[in-house]
């Protein structure tokens, strides 16, 4: 076992993070169920989930701040499970930053270098402070800086050590929306520039999708699904993922027949077509399936013009219950026999002024945009208000 830290990315198999059968229990409560996860070197990896889903615990086990109940943590080909945090070539950007209040910015950033016995730190620290555009602030104390500046100090303090993996624990949680957007781009730029593996924990699906190459969606101590942001969004495999990433309309349907790759379903008196490749549910004839479609994939046509809808599209009739004008789009809620609150987002290209609440309409979409989920799950899992999911405002207020 190595006792000194190797701070270069060369050797030791680089910056792959491999978690094998890792779990964490506190008494009777299981925070993380046995979990296998590989984060490839140089990637920007996000652990996404509601608070209490085990994502921070997983991160802290990689950092060494939490001892796993079972399983191993490997960095490259080095097993670091038994190493204390100060011997792991890993650095963390903490939630609320945890800058040392008694040290100035320069000393905060120099902390890691000094602890490793590096004498001449001035040049490195100044370069790092320039990278995060804080060269002027070197002699200030953390409390004299704004939230965004503190956040950049926290990143600089971690990055200056050239860790093999940088762990970010909700690093943007305390910032306001505008600053958060700016820091998302900034972090992504830094990651591309230094090429270090980033593991980012967040409850904000937009943040995860904007920055990460790969997202692992966690729920109740388990990884629900892992993939690229587009893959997760287009092909959710569980209702939790379908609802937690963006919004999904989920309709309960019955399998009517199968022809080749197409599955024909009955829902609310109509027929819907679902591509077999896009369903993660068993599809025996007569069985139940949850049919999903994203609100922005749906077109809305006034019932009078129903004849103009091309053949081969999935269609559902209904009545507009509510509409709200958002600017780029108008969001409709439609009541239909298949589903009482169907959400439809229509781009404001040619606005049909007849589409007001009370209007009879036809919803239609390309069958290829339909996905199928196992009907045994709650169609509400992962929606705002369901157990374990909080709105961003609640999270920030605490």
């Amino acid at each position, binding site marked *: 076992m190595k006792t000194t830290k190797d701070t270069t990315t060369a050797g030791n198999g680089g910056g792959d993070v491999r978690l094998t059968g890792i779990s964490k229990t506190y008494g009777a409560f299981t925070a993380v169920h046995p979990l296998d996860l590989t984060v490839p070197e140089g990637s920007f990896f996000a652990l996404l989930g509601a608070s209490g889903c085990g994502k921070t615990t997983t991160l802290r086990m990689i950092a060494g*701040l939490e001892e796993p109940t079972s399983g191993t943590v490997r960095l490259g080909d080095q097993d670091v499970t038994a190493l204390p*945090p*100060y011997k792991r070539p890993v650095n963390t950007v*903490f939630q609320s930053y945890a*800058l*040392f209040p008694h040290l100035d910015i320069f000393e905060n950033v120099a*902390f890691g270098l000094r602890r490793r016995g590096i004498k001449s730190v001035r040049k490195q620290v100044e370069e790092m402070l320039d990278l995060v555009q804080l060269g002027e602030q070197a002699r200030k104390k953390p409390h004299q800086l704004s939230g965004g500046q503190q956040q950049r100090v926290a990143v600089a303090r971690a990055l200056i050590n050239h860790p093999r993996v940088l762990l970010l624990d909700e690093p943007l949680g305390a910032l306001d929306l505008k600053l958060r957007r700016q820091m998302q781009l900034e972090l992504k730029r830094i990651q591309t520039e230094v090429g270090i593996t980033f593991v980012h924990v967040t409850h904000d699906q937009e943040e995860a999708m904007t920055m990460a190459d790969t997202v692992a969606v966690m729920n109740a101590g388990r990884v629900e699904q892992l993939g690229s942001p587009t893959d997760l969004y287009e092909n959710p495999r569980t209702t939790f993922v379908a609802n937690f990433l963006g919004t999904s309309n989920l309709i309960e349907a019955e399998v009517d027949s199968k022809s080749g790759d197409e599955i024909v379903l009955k829902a609310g008196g109509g027929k819907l077509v679902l591509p077999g490749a896009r369903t993660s549910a068993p599809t025996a004839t007569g069985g139940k399936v949850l049919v999903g479609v994203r609100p922005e994939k749906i077109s809305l046509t006034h019932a009078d013009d129903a004849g103009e809808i091309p053949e081969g599209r999935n269609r559902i009739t209904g009545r507009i219950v509510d509409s709200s004008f958002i600017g780029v789009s108008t969001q409709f809620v439609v009541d239909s026999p298949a589903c009482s609150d169907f959400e439809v987002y229509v781009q404001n290209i040619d606005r049909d002024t007849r589409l007001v609440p009370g209007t009879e309409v036809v919803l239609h979409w390309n069958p290829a945009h339909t996905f199928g989920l196992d009907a045994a799950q709650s169609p509400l899992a992962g929606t705002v208000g369901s157990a374990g999911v909080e709105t961003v405002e609640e999270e920030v207020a605490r």
Partner: protein
Amino acid sequence: MAFVNWLKRHLVVIAGLCTLAYLILPNVVVTVFSFNNPKGRFNYEWQEFSTAAWKDPCGVSGLCESLSLSLQIALWAMLGATLLGTMIAFALVRYRFRARGAVNSLIFLPMAMPEVVMAASLLTLFLNMGAQLGFWTILIAHIMFCLSFVVVAVKARVMSMDPRLEQAAQDLYAGPFQTFVRVTLPIAAPGIAAGALLAFALSFDDFIITNFNAGSTVTFPMFVWGSAQRGTPVQINVIGTAMFVVAVLLVLVSMAIGNRRRRQKA
């Protein structure tokens, strides 16, 4: 009318000055009477100005010996109580152990208990153990009652400390010892310093507990008490004034340093 308005506007300042006068007046009397040249043995009536006592502060036999003993005891009691109290405070805040709740409330017992009761029971204990009364029994007693105050001061500070700071230090390659020295201790330092000063002051002027457990040893408060029975030498006022001046100077210096630091930052 104008006067009433003026009064209204300056009421806070006037009230403040009155309170300050109330606090400082006894010290002023002590200082003034340190320049007295009393007739007879008691220094209670102003006679004439004299600096005799200032020129010979140790002129009364036993006074400077008792002062030096009190300073020594205060210093050791401060060190002992601060060390133990800091460790107790950390243990109480950081760890969950059996009887933590009991320790948490028992630690306040010396603060709550009447001093006379504590003094008498301590004496009983020392006598039963066959301990030789003197320097060591005084020191043990002082550390005991100073402890609670240190614990209170340090605990408040440690409780408000973000545990993530220490985790951040560990994450940045500081081992347990380095983390404590570089992060934990500097952040807890104001609380520890406050506790230490309090312990010093409490130990230095304690009379009741000391009087019970001192045997034939005489500390400065005991000397003052003893001489007050027979007549008060002016030197007592001299020592009192000197201590007051030293304390005020220390405060002024620390304020000046703080101000300068703040100005440099800005």
